[in-house]
């Protein structure tokens, strides 16, 4: 089957090249049939990629170790869920996933626009096919996922234990869907530029794709943060790691793009800005894909030395140069049809929000690439740490949240100060009340930045609530509907607007969680023996007993050995039990002893968290296995050639020894206030984005009408 998969990729590459060529030829000569042929070729590329992906997936499921990729990234002992997802934990497999998603997205958008945008689609087809060809080229030329081994090993290496977390396995496809999704508006922007049709048509056709891409990318980033919080064992959710930054940058610029295209749709302004933004977003998305694979920047996530760094760099440079040249050449066509009337208008605030978002992305870009920049300028490689990022991004984030509240309620063109006062009065009063309450009842004043963020969050929520209230009460007056019905109808009729409000509320809530948990976190590292206890804040934690499980850790990661602790936590008259553990995975290193091999491989923290709306209690354990070192050595010497079941007996004896007489273990406890609201805010924003992206009944109607008139036109021209 590996041969079939390989052939699929080669044929897909040729088909993609044909698609690009046919679309360009059809576009230049005005031959529709060639463009249609190119479009259908893109469908074929998608189908071939799906077939290749299915073949690879089935190889993983069957644990067919004659595939190099399966032998490296999976094993028979890997749980089924992680077998499925291990495909994209490998370099080659993730490239295939990228190409497959691109094929599907491109087919969807080309199918939807097959009867419209006739000037633009040939070029958009060519761009999408070109990008797909690049990824297929990488696989066919260097990173073929269907490489086979001459002698299939008995057992594979298994999936990297750190990646055995549900959030981590869904996170990459989410990110890729986001990255890939942004290639759609990019392709149509390029098409619009080449065809000299820089109106809002390309935006209307691809706006929804951009929104979907934005939603997936945002969800992916959040899942990554969740993984970091609950798997990496350090207790934080964001470390300004290059790989994290690489996913955040396109998201920020994409956010700016989603806002500024509204200005172009409504007012015919910012055309140059919009095409520049989408080109930047796409380049950053490619950069994100590239950074994970290149090894040019040091990261905790670390990258394998790769053979395709140069190719990526060439491709990114080519995209950058071509799009910049194209924008400059087409500048005369991109003149605005309107001017900014007043600074007190929605478009002015959208522009401001754009500048803040781009500034944020710029700060992160600079910090991420600072090692390279400083080496180029001063000759020594220097890095900037999280404090630097926090210091520069905090003020920008605060301004951003404020704009989140003001922007959407301003009118287009111009707003009178008196109507602004009317709209902002209630939210401002509410914010003032919150401020007074915070100062009087809590210690929020200890961190000025957080205090400002709390107030601005309250402001945004008040603005959004007021908008919903106003809209729904207007409906009630007109229709006499009950509140829930009026609210539902209101949202259903204006999905973009009220979905947008929800997103804004969600983002504000998310920042509330970030501000509270970063400024008021309490942490303690202690070493305890069973029976001892420590206090952190209002919590009293007691180490009840040690645990040692074999072959069945509670989170289903397939770890053979799991040492942990049972901890009784008391807060006031409330008690609960946490069971943090540490999983040990065996090492494949033959130079290690037969028994020590089981302890010397990877080890991962299985954190236990008491989730709460007000605060999380987070607990990790690090059992000290140094007391087992001597018995392990002895066992190594005595049972070097022991059979598997004897080894299992020895391991069980060692585990029992740890359980019955545990040495002191190291614990890290964290009390993180309001951290749950990061995930809740993210979920609200996700919901809002879904509402905004869902097709409205009117839009459906319009599409049906457009379809009919197109058919009618065809019939008439035939007649």
């Amino acid at each position, binding site marked *: 089957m590996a041969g079939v998969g390989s052939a699929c990729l080669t044929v897909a590459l040729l088909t993609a090249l044909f698609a690009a060529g046919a679309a360009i030829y059809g576009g230049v000569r005005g031959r529709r049939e060639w463009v249609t042929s190119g479009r259908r070729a893109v469908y074929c590329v998608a189908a071939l990629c799906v077939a290749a992906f299915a073949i690879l997936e089935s190889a993983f499921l069957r644990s067919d170790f004659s595939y190099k990729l399966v032998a*490296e*990234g999976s094993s028979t002992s890997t749980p089924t869920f992680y077998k499925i997802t291990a495909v994209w*934990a*490998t*370099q080659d497999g*993730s490239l295939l996933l990228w190409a497959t998603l691109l094929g599907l997205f491109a087919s969807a958008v080309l199918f939807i626009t097959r009867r419209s945008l006739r000037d633009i689609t040939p070029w958009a087809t060519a761009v999408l096919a070109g990008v797909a060809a690049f990824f297929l080229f990488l696989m066919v030329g260097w990173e073929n996922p269907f490489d086979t081994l001459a002698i299939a090993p008995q057992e594979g*290496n298994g999936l*990297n234990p*750190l*990646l055995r977390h549900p959030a981590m396995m869904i996170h990459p496809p989410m990110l890729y869907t986001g990255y890939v999704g942004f290639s759609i508006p990019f392709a149509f922007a390029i098409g619009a530029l080449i065809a000299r049709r820089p109106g809002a048509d390309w935006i209307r056709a691809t706006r929804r794709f951009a929104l979907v891409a934005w939603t997936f990318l945002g969800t992916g980033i959040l899942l990554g943060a969740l993984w970091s919080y609950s798997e*990496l*064992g*350090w207790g934080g959710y964001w470390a300004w790691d290059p790989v994290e930054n690489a996913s955040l940058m396109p998201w920020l610029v994409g956010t700016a793009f989603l806002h500024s295209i509204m200005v172009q749709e409504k007012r015919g302004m910012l055309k140059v800005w919009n095409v520049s933004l989408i080109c930047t977003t796409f380049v950053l998305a490619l950069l994100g894909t590239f950074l*994970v*694979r290149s090894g040019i920047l*040091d*990261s*905790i*996530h*670390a*990258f*394998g*030395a*790769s053979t395709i760094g140069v190719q990526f760099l060439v491709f990114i440079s080519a995209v950058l140069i071509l799009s910049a040249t194209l924008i400059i050449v087409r500048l005369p066509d991109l003149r605005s049809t309107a*001017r900014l009337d007043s600074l007190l208008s929605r478009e002015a605030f959208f522009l401001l929000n754009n*500048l803040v978002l781009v*500034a944020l992305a*710029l*700060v992160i870009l*600079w*910090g991420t690439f*600072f*090692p390279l920049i*400083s080496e180029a300028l001063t000759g*020594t*490689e*220097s*890095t*900037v*740490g999280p*404090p*630097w990022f926090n*210091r*520069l991004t905090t003020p920008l984030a605060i301004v951003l949240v404020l704009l989140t509240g003001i922007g959407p309620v301003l009118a287009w063109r111009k707003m009178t100060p008196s109507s602004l006062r009317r709209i902002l009065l209630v939210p401002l009063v509410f914010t003032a009340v919150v401020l007074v309450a915070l100062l009087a009842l809590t210690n929020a004043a200890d961190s000025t930045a957080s205090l400002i963020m709390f107030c601005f969050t309250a402001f945004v929520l008040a603005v959004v609530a007021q908008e919903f209230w106003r809209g729904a009460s207007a409906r009630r007056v007109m229709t006499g509907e009950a509140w829930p019905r009026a609210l539902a109808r209101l949202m259903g009729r204006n999905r973009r607007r009220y979905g947008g409000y929800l997103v804004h509320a969600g983002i504000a809530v998310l920042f509330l969680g970030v501000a509270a948990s970063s400024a008021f976190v309490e942490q303690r*590292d202690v*070493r305890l023996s069973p029976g001892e206890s420590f206090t952190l804040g209002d919590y009293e934690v007691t180490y009840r007993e040690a645990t040692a499980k074999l072959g069945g850790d509670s989170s289903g990661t397939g770890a053979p050995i799991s040492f942990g602790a049972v901890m009784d936590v008391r807060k006031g008259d409330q008690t609960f039990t946490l069971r943090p553990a540490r999983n040990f995975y065996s*090492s*494949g*290193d033959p*130079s290690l002893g037969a028994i020590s091999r089981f302890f*010397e491989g*990877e*080890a*991962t*923290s299985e954190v236990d968290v008491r989730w709460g709306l007000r605060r999380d209690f987070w607990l990790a354990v*690090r059992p000290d296995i*140094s007391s087992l070192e001597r018995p392990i050595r002895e066992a190594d010497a005595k049972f070097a050639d022991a059979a598997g079941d004897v080894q299992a007996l020895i391991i069980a004896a060692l585990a029992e020894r740890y359980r019955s007489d545990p040495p*002191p273990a*190291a614990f*890290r406890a964290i009390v993180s206030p309001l951290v749950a609201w990061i995930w809740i805010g993210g979920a609200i924003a996700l919901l809002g984005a879904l509402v905004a992206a869902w097709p409205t009944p009117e839009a459906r109607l319009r599409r049906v009408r457009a379809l009919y008139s197109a058919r009618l036109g065809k019939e008439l021209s035939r007649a």
Partner: protein
Amino acid sequence: MDPSRKRKLRLGVALTAAVLLATALIYTSFSASTEASKPSEIEPGKSYEVTGKVVHGSIQKSGDDDLRFRIRDRDGTQSVPVAYSGVVPDPFRDGREVIVSGELKQGTFVAERDSLVTKCPSKFTKDEQSS
């Protein structure tokens, strides 16, 4: 104000903001940065962020939280002893690449508490276990 002057003013404000941000970026990043160095490069009296590999068999635990090990250049044999206390990241092992900040005192690199970062073995390729 007539529109063209207004536009110029706006442009001026925007450019000033951009220049301010750029200056802040450059200034703060160079002043806040720490040098990434190799174990063979460090000298006493200066703080460093050292990137290197843990020398095989050099890890020793002493006391509760204290850890001693040696790190060497990524591609070299010259190594320096490290005294570290604090949290040890999950993937810390012989031969792993680590980043640690601190200062050289009497021939030993004394690391700041909790400053140890271990690079995980690559997500995409199997770790070369014993390199």
